[in-house]
């Protein structure tokens, strides 16, 4: 478990080598940890400081010397550069020569930088290369300092443009005085001038190697012809200069250095033999300078000269084709014209130098040369036809073609300046005879003047120069020429904002005017020398402090920058720096925001954490989900559960045997009753005697009726339904018959039922028809009294107001029946004919207070009499006549007048007996059934 760590977020255990939690994907290790210095810098990683001074030993000697001189002449700048080196160091990786298809990483950033709009972050040294601002870049896309360095067509470009748009190093190159140039020139140039024709220990080894390699390359097979395509710019530039020198061969060259190597002399002779004028015609002053300049011929040039002679001796009489086959491309390309011209040194002349001579010949071996020439030389002559899309820089070279006449016809301004200043020639080259050797002795003046200017070669070019050891690379690794120019394309794109195009030579016209000098005088004049080493890259500036090594360390591929590393200037473009990191650290310490120090978001502040707002400090508590319940609570829960279950269970509905009347029994009863009644009515029998006795309520009613004054107004309320009319008429007819006969009362009929009015007319016209009562004369039919109990009360309070009209809608209270009656109590008696106990109760209740002592007799149906009986017992009703039985009794008190009661009495009596019999029989039947069930149950027990 020692290699296990816990996730700070989820607390799960993870392997210590994991960066993120495998459960919650949170970061396991602090993000502010130091990065491994050995690992390549990846996007999002903080650039680390690198002291590029360590790289100093691997620098070529000439660069170290140049740095040393620069440190002496420009101490301030060196200090600045040193500081910058301390801050951002280039990667410890030399330019990889094995991969010409891809530009060196150091230069690879130039492309991106050129593409980037953020020019402000361009490192100083890179800015010195481009030397332009962002705006200038857009304004003159075709201009390029690099081109200018290489070909140096001063007049090809708009020299009138402001100095601001000129790169510093270029501007200085143009404007710096010669004196300053010389001061700023590396001491090694001076020192090399003194030991003329001697192998100086300070000579650059790479130059030596170059000569050796050139010799070896000449002995190698021809597949290495493609090797020159990998030549660095300095070679190309040199070739261009050579071409320029050849073009300007007609110019007077005042001096020819005596120290020139033979091959250079031959080259110069070749130039003369080619029919062209002297490639360089320099003034006497320039010749003087060049004399000293020639004395600085690098060893490698001398070596090359010797090699050329040796090669010539070895080749002997061998054919030209054999020579070209055994020589490197650039040698081969030079060899053919040299051979044709009888020049012995032509074989050893590098292609860049031979180009001038070759092109000065113009015609003869042009085609064959181009076949074997390096790609970059081929394109010089065949660019219009064979311009590859890859050779962007070559394309750019074609564009200034219209300026070629001026390029050939007259010396460009910058070249004119060369007459006086002889600048812009790379120091490493201009200090040697090599450059002037390619020209006639008297024509080497510009190169001699341009000596210091070579020190203004951009860093990338300087860095690329030692890698000319690519001569050692096998042919199989040689890349296409188009690929070799990729990095130059990047450089070109980054320098498109140059105010002046430094490289405007038309390649197609180059075949005819290849003798044009590659470097213009003004391109390396003026202040260019001053800024020569001012724009030295930081890593070079820092290295200036180191003592020059007599034995420079060879640059090997192992020292090359690894592909994954970022150049220092790219790292410098990173948003993270020490200052912001410190501020961010302070902010982090204050707990305000977090700073991402790793990953793609490195350097960004305030990035949302993996778990926003939640950083648990400890593992959350674990709560048990087990329910803590006591036994009592559990019992209650079970009881509740049972109750709920019982509620959900369906309850069977108890079925009871319905009491269904037997159809037979019903038919039997109906037949018996109907037959009995029909028989009794049909027979008109009077078997049964009239009832005897006199109930108290009936006696009281008789007394009330007999007590009514003669002709007194009597109020009769007829509240019964038509279905009970027969019974009510049978019960009321004896009463009214007696009363009408005895007292002739004025009757006022009123009803709380809608049908009461018509029933009154029926009663008057039926049972009382013999009395001769007429409406509104002897009786008054008020008709319907609305309002129910409220109407009764209203009528009892004010009869005239409650019922102003009779049933015929005539005024009622001015008629005879109600004459003298204005109040309820003024009626002599109140007779209520009702079949409903409630109606009797309403009349009793609502009229009790208004009735006073007025007798109240109720003639009711047999079904309502039991309910009205209590009112009689209480004295609220003075008499009660109930049904057929009451009518039959009352009839017996009418002096023997036959009535309807007697007519119905036998049928009624026998029907009552039958009913009683059925009830008794039914009761007995039920009793028998009960006894049977009980006996059966008893037997079962």
């Amino acid at each position, binding site marked *: 478990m020692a290699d296990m760590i816990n996730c700070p977020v989820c607390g799960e255990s993870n392997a210590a080598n994991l960066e993120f939690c495998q459960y919650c994907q949170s970061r396991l290790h602090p993000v502010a940890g130091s990065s491994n210095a050995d690992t390549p810098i990846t996007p999002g990683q903080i650039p680390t400081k690198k002291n590029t001074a360590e790289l100093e030993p691997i620098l070529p000697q000439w660069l170290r010397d140049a740095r040393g001189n620069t440190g002496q002449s420009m101490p301030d700048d060196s200090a600045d550069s040193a500081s910058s080196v301390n801050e951002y160091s280039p990667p410890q990786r030399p330019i990889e020569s094995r991969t010409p298809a891809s530009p060196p990483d150091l230069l690879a950033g130039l492309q991106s930088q050129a593409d980037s709009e953020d020019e402000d972050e361009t490192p100083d040294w890179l800015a010195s290369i481009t030397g332009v601002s962002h705006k200038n870049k857009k304004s003159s896309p075709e201009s390029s300092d690099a081109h200018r360095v290489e070909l140096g067509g001063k007049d090809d470009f708009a020299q009138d443009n402001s100095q601001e748009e000129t790169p510093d190093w270029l501007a200085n190159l143009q404007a710096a005085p010669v004196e300053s140039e010389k001061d700023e020139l590396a001491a090694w140039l001076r020192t090399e001038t003194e030991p003329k024709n001697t192998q100086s220990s300070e000579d650059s080894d790479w130059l030596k190697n170059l000569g050796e390699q050139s010799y070896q390359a000449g002995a190698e097979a021809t597949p290495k012809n493609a090797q020159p395509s990998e030549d660095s710019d300095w070679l190309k530039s040199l070739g261009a200069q050579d071409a320029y020198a050849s073009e300007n061969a007609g110019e007077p060259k005042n001096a020819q250095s005596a120290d020139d190597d033979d091959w250079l002399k031959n080259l110069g002779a070749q130039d003369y033999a080619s029919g062209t004028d002297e490639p360089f015609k320099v003034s006497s002053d320039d010749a003087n300078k060049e004399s000293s300049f020639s004395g600085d011929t690098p060893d490698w040039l001398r070596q090359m000269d010797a090699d050329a002679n040796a090669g010539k001796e070895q080749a002997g009489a061998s054919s030209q084709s054999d020579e070209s086959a055994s020589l490197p491309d650039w040698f081969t390309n030079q060899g053919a014209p040299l051979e044709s011209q009888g020049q012995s040194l032509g074989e050893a002349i590098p292609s860049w130098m031979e180009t001038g001579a070759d092109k000065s010949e113009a015609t003869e071996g042009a085609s064959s040369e181009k076949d074997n020439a390096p790609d970059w030389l081929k394109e010089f002559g065949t660019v219009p036809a064979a311009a590859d899309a890859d050779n962007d820089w070559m394309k750019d070279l074609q564009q200034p073609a219209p300026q070629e006449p001026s390029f050939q016809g007259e010396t460009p301004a910058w070249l004119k300046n060369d007459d006086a200043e002889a600048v812009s020639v790379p120091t490493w080259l201009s200090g040697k005879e090599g450059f002037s050797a390619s020209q006639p002795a008297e024509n080497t003046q510009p190169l001699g003047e341009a000596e210091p200017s070579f020190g203004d070669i951009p860093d990338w070019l300087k860095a690329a120069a030692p890698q000319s050891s690519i001569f050692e690379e096998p042919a199989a690794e040689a890349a296409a020429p188009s690929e070799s120019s990729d990095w130059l394309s990047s450089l070109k794109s980054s320098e498109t904002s140059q105010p002046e195009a430094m490289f405007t030579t038309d390649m197609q016209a180059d075949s005819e005017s290849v003798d044009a000098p590659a470097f213009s005088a003004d391109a390396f004049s003026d202040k260019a020398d001053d800024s020569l080493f001012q724009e030295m890259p930081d890593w070079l500036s820092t290295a200036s402090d180191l003592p020059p090594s007599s034995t420079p360390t060879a640059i090997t591929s192992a020292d090359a920058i690894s592909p994954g590393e970022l150049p220092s200037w790219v790292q410098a473009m990173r948003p993270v720096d020490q200052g912001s990191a410190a501020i961010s650290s302070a902010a982090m310490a204050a707990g305000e925001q977090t700073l991402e120090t790793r990953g793609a978001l490195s350097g960004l502040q305030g990035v949302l954490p993996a778990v926003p707002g939640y950083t648990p400090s400890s593992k959350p508590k674990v709560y048990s989900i087990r329910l803590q319940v006591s036994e009592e609570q559990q019992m209650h829960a079970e009881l509740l559960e049972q109750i709920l279950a019982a509620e959900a269970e369906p309850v069977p509905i108890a079925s009871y045997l319905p009491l269904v009347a037997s159809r037979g029994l*019903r*038919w039997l009863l*109906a037949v018996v*009753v*109907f037959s009995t*009644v*029909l028989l009794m*009515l*049909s027979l008109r029998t009077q078997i049964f005697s009239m009832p005897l006795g006199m109930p*108290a309520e009936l006696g009281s009613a008789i007394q009330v009726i007999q007590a009514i004054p003669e002709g007194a107004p009597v109020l009769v309320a007829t509240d019964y339904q038509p*279905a*009970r009319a*027969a*019974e009510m008429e*049978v019960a009321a007819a004896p009463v009214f018959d007696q009363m009408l006969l005895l007292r002739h009362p004025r009757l006022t009929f009123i009803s709380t039922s*809608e*049908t009461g*009015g018509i029933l009154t007319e029926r009663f008057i016209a039926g049972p009382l028809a013999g009395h001769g009562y007429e409406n509104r004369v002897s009786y008054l039919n008020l*008709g*319907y009294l*609305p309002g*129910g*109990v*409220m109407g009764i*009360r209203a009528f009892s309070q004010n009869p005239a107001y409650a019922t*102003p*009209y009779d*049933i015929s*809608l005539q005024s009622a209270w001015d008629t005879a029946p109600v004459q003298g009656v204005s109040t309820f109590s003024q009626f002599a008696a109140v007779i209520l004919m009702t*079949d409903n106990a409630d109606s009797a*109760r*309403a009349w*009793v*209740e*609502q009229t*009790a*207070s208004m009735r006073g002592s007025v007798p109240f007799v109720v003639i009711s*149906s*047999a*079904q*309502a*009499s*039991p309910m009205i009986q*209590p*009112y009689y*017992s*209480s*004295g*609220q009703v003075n008499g009660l006549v*109930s*049904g*057929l*039985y009451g009518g039959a009794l009352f009839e017996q008190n009418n002096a023997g007048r036959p009535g309807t009661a007697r*007519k*119905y009495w036998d*049928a*009624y009596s026998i*029907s*009552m007996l039958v*009913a009683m019999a059925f009830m008794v029989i039914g009761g007995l039947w039920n009793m028998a059934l009960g006894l049977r069930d009980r006996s059966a149950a008893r037997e079962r027990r």
Partner: protein
Amino acid sequence: MMPSPDLIFGLASFVFTLMIFSYVIGDNPLFRIAIYIFTGVTAGYIAAVVWWQVLLPRLIIPLISGPLEQKLLLVVPFIGALLILFKISPRLAGAGRLAMAFLVGAGAAVTIAGALGGTLIPQVMGTITVFDLDAASARNINILEVIGNGSIILAGTIFSLAYFHFGARPRPDGSMHRLGIIEIFSWIGRIFIGITLGVVFAGVYAAALTALIERMSSLIDFIGKFL
């Protein structure tokens, strides 16, 4: 020869009587037709009575030709009547609530007042006075009869009320039972109630039997006219 109205009415009465009697054999269309006819005729007659005997002479005519004060007084019932008509529509039924509230309130007040003064108190007093010997002697009632009747009335009243007493207490076994005396009174009260219901049933039967006899008599009379 034009049939006399008595013959027409007698024949109609005879037919409808037979149709109602057909209910003896069960529900049948003749019975239903007779019922529908009676219901329709009754409704129509009631509507005519209400219009001709209530609305027209007591509301419309006074509002048109009555004196001003009577008109002003009749505006209230007129508006109340219109509001009650809104109860025909379920959406507008709320408009008649005021008039209905007035009617219910007034009817309840009148009924309660009448019940108290006309039924409850007089009935209590009547139960008490049954033992009034003076009153009984005034009505020429024997004292034994008065006591006997009074005792039966009192017993019947008490026992019948005891039957409707549903107060009970729980027993140890969980069952609910009334007091023993209440149980006895209740049992006696059931007898009185039974007798009362028997009397009512007898009255209903007697009333129905009287109606049957009258209808049979009318049939016989109708048939006798043509014989």
